C-alpha cells in the first residue's frame, strides 16, 4: 500500500480541525500541535502509522462530537461574556 501523500495528510489535518471546531477548545489546539510536532517526519512507515492513528482519532472525534450534542447542556459562564481585551 502506498504511503500517504502530503495531500492526504493535509486533507486529514483539515478534516480533523473542522470536526474539532464543534468540540472543546482542547481538541483544536491538540490536533494542531500534534501535526506541527510531526511535520518533519520522513520515514514512510512512521508517517503511515501516524496517519492511521489520526484516522482513528478522527473517528473518535466524530462520534464524540455527536454524543456531546445529544447530551448538550448550558454554556459556561465564560462563553457568554463580552471579555474586554486588556
Amino acid at each position, binding site marked *: 500500500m502506498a504511503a500517504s501523500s502530503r495531500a492526504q495528510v493535509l486533507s486529514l489535518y483539515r478534516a480533523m480541525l473542522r470536526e474539532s471546531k464543534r*468540540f*472543546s*477548545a*482542547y481538541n483544536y489546539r*491538540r490536533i494542531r*500541535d500534534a501535526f506541527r510536532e510531526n511535520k518533519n517526519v520522513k520515514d514512510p512507515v512512521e508517517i503511515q502509522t501516524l496517519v492511521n492513528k489520526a484516522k482513528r*482519532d478522527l473517528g*473518535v*472525534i466524530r*462520534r*464524540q462530537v*455527536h*454524543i*456531546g*450534542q*445529544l*447530551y*448538550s*447542556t*448550558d*454554556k*459556561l*459562564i*465564560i*462563553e*457568554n*461574556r463580552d*471579555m474586554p481585551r486588556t
Partner: protein
Amino acid sequence: MLLRAAWRRAAVAVTAAPGPKPAAPTRGLRLRVGDRAPQSAVPADTAAAPEVGPVLRPLYMDVQATTPLDPRVLDAMLPYLINYYGNPHSRTHAYGWESEAAMERARQQVASLIGADPREIIFTSGATESNNIAIKGQGLTLLLRLECSGAILPCHSFNLLGSSNPPTPASPVTSTTGVGAIYIRRRPRVRVEALQSGGGQERGMRSGTVPTPLVVGLGAACEVAQQEMEYDHKRISKLSERLIQNIMKSLPDVVMNGDPKHHYPGCINLSFAYVEGESLLMALKDVALSSGSACTSASLEPSYVLRAIGTDEDLAHSSIRFGIGRFTTEEEVDYTVEKCIQHVKRLREMSPLWEMVQDGIDLKSIKWTQH
C-alpha cells in the same frame, strides 16, 4: 439480537429528530445571569412571572475531586456498555471471552503506564479501596494522612509497598470514579492479604466481578495519559505559573501550601490571610472550587493536610484548592484569577483583622476576651 436491532432503530430516530434533552439536575447547579427574582409571598399566578435570563454553568477548577471524562476514554468504554456486555469471568461463551480480553488489555495499559508487569495490577473500586488493601492487607495500622484523589492512580500505595520501581509522576488520568488499581510487586514479593472475599477474582486478591466498562475506561485513560504526559505537563505547568503569578502579584499575604519543588503543578493550594475560606468559595460562585480535599468539604474542618504540615491555625481556614487539568483553558484561568482577586480584596475590606493589620497591630499580641 433484538436488543441490538432496537438500539440501532433508536440511534436512527435520535439522529433524525433530537427529542427533548434529559432533564438537567437542578439542585444548586444553575446560575442565573441578570436580576435575581425577588422572593415574593404573593402567589405565582397573581404576580407576573419573572423573566429568567440564560442559565450558565460555572467553570470547573476542581480536578482533584474528579475530572471530566476524556472523549477518547468514553469512546473506548461505550462498546462495553452497549453490545459487549459480557461478564469477564464467564468462561464458556464469546461474550465472556471478549470482555476478558478487554479487561486484560486494560490491565496491560495500566501496567505500561507505571512500568509494571500486568500480573502486578489488581483492579479495585478506587483509590480508597486500594489504600485499604495496601495498609490493612499487610497488617499495618499506620495513621497516615493521605489526600484522596480518585482521579489519580493511588501512587501512595506504591510507596507503602516499598516498591523500588518508582511510579511515573502523578499525571492526570482522566477516567471515571468508581474504579482504581493497585500495584503489588512480585519480585521481590510483597505479601498482601485480601480484604474482600468471594469468588477469588483478581488472583484472589480482590473478589468480585471486574466491571469491564470501567476498567476499559481506566486502561484507555492510562494509555492517553502516557501519550499526553509531556504535552499536558508542559501546558499545565504554564497555566499553573500564570495563575500563581497573577494572583500573587495583585494580592499581598497569599501563601502557597505544599513543597514548591515536589509539587504537582495542576494542584495549587493557596491560603489567603485574613479571609475566611468558605466565604471566598461562596463568593466565587462562577468557579467550581474547593478548600482542601473533597471528602471533608461538607464539614468546616480545615484540611488536616495543612495542619499536619505545620501551617498556622489562623491561616488554615482560608485555603482554596485550584485544580488545573488537561482541558483547562487560559481563559478559564484568567477569569478565575480575576474573580479571586476581586473577591479577596472585597472580603478583606470587610475584615476587622485586615483593618488591624493595616493599622500595624500585631495580631499575635491581641488578648481575645472570653465570652
